[in-house]
């Protein structure tokens, strides 16, 4: 079956809207969040209309249905990332919470080192900075090359016997770079460090196989993969999560509670304090079904094609400089750029005028912006429903921006 973008776009009601009368939406802010297909919206609506109840604590029919739907979503996510055991899938609020959970529970202290990279999203940087301040550990980082890739020559210098955790992004939301997980993980393994992968941008666009990747824990977020906001995923190796201490305390995460103390529930509940995001889990389950039906390899191939096309067309725009890899090898479809003499804010504003939605700013990756000497960038990013027409509209819009400011 060929990949039929026109048909796929019909699954996403928002793609039909106009930003203002006569100006159709061209949505190229997918690295910030994705749009949602009917299947996800319907699943959440059905849940609320038919099965709404709290989970894991009730013997009535609705409670059982809600629990089955919630746990069913966990099973779907586990299959989607090839987790050996669904109990390794913890539902969180988003990637940020998953990464904070790890930064709070992994064991390290004074004299130990945590290694990140200079291209991290603040969500995979600030929690480790806080953890270092709390524990007395030291933060170190792997630098970047001028081409927007990890400086692998840094690995041997930065990752040492003192390193306890290596946490890094799979696919950069700012640069689009896809990092060589195997190389970094192998180095981390050689010194006995835990390996944490921020897969927020890779799970939605290429999928992951947690058994093939030699990592200990992975974080990703529902809203970037056609699911709702308010739900994210932490996957971790069972033995590791089982031995780590709890993160948030509350209902559901306990085994036995007395006034003198408590013991913890088994995985995954140990890490799911309080009433979880049930409808959101149901929505995420539907999103995973949707992605699976299209097929992650097909989605990846489509986005790769678009990335090749976009890089080629953008580099024809006068005065445009790509911040990040300029070819589509080991690269996703988030493309940051600077337009000579025109601030990204002005670029974004004028693109919005012609319906093109992009993101401007530092994209929560300020250190990487500083590394490339730009206070901010304009970023266009594609998703499974994006088309060449979207890229054409962007390029045409940029011509309009240049004309406006050169007059």
């Amino acid at each position, binding site marked *: 079956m060929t990949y039929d973008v026109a048909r796929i776009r019909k699954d996403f009601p928002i793609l039909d809207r106009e930003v203002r009368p006569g100006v159709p939406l061209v949505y190229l802010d997918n690295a910030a969040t994705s749009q949602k297909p009917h299947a996800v919206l319907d699943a959440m609506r059905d849940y609320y209309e038919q099965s709404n109840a709290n989970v894991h604590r009730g013997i009535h029919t609705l409670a059982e249905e809600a629990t089955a739907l919630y746990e069913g979503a966990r099973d779907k996510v586990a299959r989607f990332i090839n987790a050996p055991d669904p109990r390794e899938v913890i539902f969180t609020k988003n990637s940020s919470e998953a990464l904070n959970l790890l930064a709070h529970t992994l064991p390290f202290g004074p004299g130990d080192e945590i290694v990140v990279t200079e291209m991290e999203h603040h969500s995979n940087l600030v929690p480790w900075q806080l953890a270092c301040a709390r524990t007395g550990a030291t933060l170190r980082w792997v630098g970047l090359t001028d081409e927007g890739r990890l400086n692998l020559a840094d690995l041997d210098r930065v990752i040492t016997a003192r390193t306890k955790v290596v946490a890094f992004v799979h696919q950069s939301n700012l640069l689009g770079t896809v990092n060589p997980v195997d190389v970094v993980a192998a180095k981390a393994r050689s010194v006995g460090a835990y390996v944490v992968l921020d897969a927020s941008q890779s799970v939605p666009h290429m999928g992951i196989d947690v058994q093939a990747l030699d990592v200990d824990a992975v974080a990703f977020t529902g809203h970037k993969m056609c699911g709702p906001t308010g739900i994210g995923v932490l996957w971790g190796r069972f033995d590791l999560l089982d031995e780590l201490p709890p993160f948030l305390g509350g209902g559901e995460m306990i085994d036995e509670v007395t006034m003198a103390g408590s013991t913890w529930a088994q995985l995954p509940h140990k890490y799911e304090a309080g009433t979880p995001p049930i409808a959101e889990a149901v929505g995420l389950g539907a999103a995973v079904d949707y992605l699976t039906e299209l097929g992650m390899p097909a989605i990846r191939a489509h986005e790769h094609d678009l990335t090749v096309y976009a890089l080629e067309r953008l580099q024809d725009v006068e005065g445009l400089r790509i911040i990040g890899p300029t070819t589509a090898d080991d690269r996703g479809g988030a493309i940051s750029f600077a337009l000579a003499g025109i601030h*990204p*804010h*002005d670029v974004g*504003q004028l693109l919005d*005028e012609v319906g093109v939605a992009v993101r401007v700013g530092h994209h929560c990756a300020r250190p990487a912006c500083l590394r490339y000497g730009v206070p901010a960038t304009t970023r266009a990013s594609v998703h499974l429903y994006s088309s060449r027409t979207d890229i054409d509209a962007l390029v045409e819009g940029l011509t309009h921006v240049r004309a406006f400011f050169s007059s």
Partner: protein
Amino acid sequence: MTVDSMYQEIILDHYKHPHHRGLREPYEVEVRHLNPTCGDEITLRVHVEGSAEEGWRVADVSYASEGCSISQASASVMADLVIGKDIDAATAVYEDFLTLMQSKGQAEPDEDVLEDAIAFVGVSRYPARVKCALLAWMAWRDATTQATEGSPT
């Protein structure tokens, strides 16, 4: 509503040919303000003359800044408006500008008070851009407060 009403000719002129730009001596206080979400930044110096008893006058405002056309033009317009004024008069202009920027495009600003700054009424319709227009003013306010309250009388 189109962006043309945001990017008024006056704004584009100030953006392309900013007034009072560059950091100068003398000054009492230098501040650096950032727009964390978009990366606009300004380093601003104020030089005041006077005392708490006789009142203060804004003798000079100088700045180095980086950012979008709105934030750059706003710094230029702000410097035009406050330099040479008594602090009370300058603060009154600052407050009028604040009100204008909170007006969501509804205000009918007084050109006698706000001069070129009336061109920003269109910007006040765009919540994401209001903070760009306010950046230089906030920096000026901060520096001036420090200069007048922090210095010995």
